[in-house]
């Protein structure tokens, strides 16, 4: 409890301290991390809790990002309109994609979600009216959220609310049902759960939250391009979830923070001896990330959140 209060205070005063010390860049960076934390958390609901290995989650982030951007570009400046529209559009996309994809299982599900996301990628790449593959630059953020500190608090609030939602959801009837389906689908159906409906509902909730993350992402950078829907983005979100902890409340957030933090460190803080050895190693930051991921998978299969859990419980590994 003490730890939680401490963390809350840190998150609340962080932007003020940074502003006072003229380090606004870090406020912006923290917002970006939290936006990815939100996106990864939404994937964790689908992948970790629901057991649906979706390899097309970037499609929903992208839908949200594009709808929010198009709203601003078309003169709808209010975030109260643009962001809900982004969430609704992403939820609708998840409903359609999920309704088709969830009729398949295993590798086919992975492939079909990937295929849908790639279709969405090529679709926005060809939207000449909104920048095509050049992307779309926004004149400003929605609702005049130009102030980095204000934007930070908005993102912090939305991430916290989403984590609270996930926490409540995981312990609700619905949460028990989707975890049971993940554990044993046949048995879940045989005790009377309409498996398809629950999975689809879970997929849509995940897609909707991803859409919100997309809206925030586009507003944060005041720019969106088709790469936000690229399959490698889906992969990156997956890596965040695996890194942080599959099916764990904080998994997505921790994974996003560690991955983006690591990328930032590798890119911005050159290590002298490594540079002599491999002059352009910083262009290949993903190699370092890959090594870390490898270590996690081998030594902490429950992710970093699982590792922290194990420590606090004195060596007992926590079951589902």
């Amino acid at each position, binding site marked *: 409890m003490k730890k939680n209060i401490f963390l809350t205070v840190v998150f609340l005063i962080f932007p003020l301290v940074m502003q006072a010390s003229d380090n606004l860049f870090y406020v912006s960076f923290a917002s970006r991390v939290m936006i990815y934390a939100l996106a990864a958390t939404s994937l964790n609901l689908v992948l970790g809790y629901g057991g649906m290995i979706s390899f097309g989650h970037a499609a929903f982030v992208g839908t949200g990002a594009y709808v929010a951007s198009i709203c601003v570009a078309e003169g709808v400046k209010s975030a109260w309109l643009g962001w809900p529209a982004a969430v609704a559009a992403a939820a609708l996309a998840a409903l359609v994609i999920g309704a088709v994809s969830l009729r398949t299982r295993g590798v086919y599900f992975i492939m079909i979600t990937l295929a849908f996301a790639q279709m969405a990628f090529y679709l926005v790449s060809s939207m000449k009216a909104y920048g095509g593959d050049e992307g779309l630059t926004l004149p400003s953020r929605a609702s005049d959220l130009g102030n980095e500190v204000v934007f930070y608090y908005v993102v912090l609030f939305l991430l916290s609310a989403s984590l609270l*939602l996930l926490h*409540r*959801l995981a*312990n*609700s*009837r*619905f*949460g*028990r*049902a989707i975890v*049971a389906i993940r*554990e*044993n689908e*046949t*048995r*879940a*159906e*045989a*005790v*009377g*759960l*309409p*498996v398809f409906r*629950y999975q689809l*509902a879970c997929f849509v909730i995940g897609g909707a939250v991803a859409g919100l993350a997309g809206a925030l992402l586009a507003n944060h950078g005041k720019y969106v391009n088709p790469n936000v829907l690229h399959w490698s983005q889906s992969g990156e979100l997956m890596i965040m979830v695996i890194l942080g902890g599959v099916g764990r409340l904080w998994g997505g957030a921790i994974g996003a923070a560690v991955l983006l933090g690591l990328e930032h460190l590798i890119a911005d803080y050159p290590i002298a001896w490594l540079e002599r050895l491999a002059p352009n190693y910083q262009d290949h930051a993903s190699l370092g990330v890959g090594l870390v991921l490898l270590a996690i998978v081998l030594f902490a299969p429950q992710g970093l959140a699982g590792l922290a859990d194990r420590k606090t419980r004195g060596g007992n590994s926590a*079951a*589902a």
Partner: protein
Amino acid sequence: MVATDGVSLEIAQGEVHALIGPNGAGKTTLIAQITGSLPPDSGSIFFVEKEITRASLHERVRIGLARSYQITSIFRRFSVLDNVALAVQARSGSSFSFWRPVADETELFKEAFTILQDVNLESSQHVLAGNLSHGDQRALEVGLALATRPRLVLLDEPMAGMGPEESRGMIALIERIRSRVTVLLVEHDMDAVFRLADRISVLVGGRLLASGRPQEIRANDEVRRAYLGDEIAA
């Protein structure tokens, strides 16, 4: 390939009806057709005067047709109590509740606990289901089926892989529940079958060879030639 061919099986309310037959007789296919995991090519299935031929598995469970599996199928990483609580939850109203913690629903766990008492697992309620002994897992399997409050429960080889002691426990369990629920029992253990069944149907080569009371089946020459052989001649 024809696995079940023109089978006409009628199960009366309140009875324990055993379905026996050699391996490959089509028992598993027939069960899959009755419970809804395999749609039949022709013919129809009625349950309490309602046609359910095309109903999905979970719809059939809703109207009171539950099953246990030959190969144990439980939620291995859930506690024993959570296993049954989930089945109770699936039956009692909608699970589209996103906010209220399940842990607050004392009724749900109370009911789950009475079912654990039925299957003699109340002392293991907090054990992870995957850590139970084989016999206890088989009992939990039956408990999951009972938790849906079925009118007909289909037990697919409940004694599979059990030692004599565990088998006795399972027979006692079925004796305890038979007054409340109709049972369709698929089983190779002839001792259990003849002890429990009110009526027995014999499936051979996808066809129903005979159907009747245990004495009639025992006395049926065709059945003896095709399946029972010397097993019960003594």
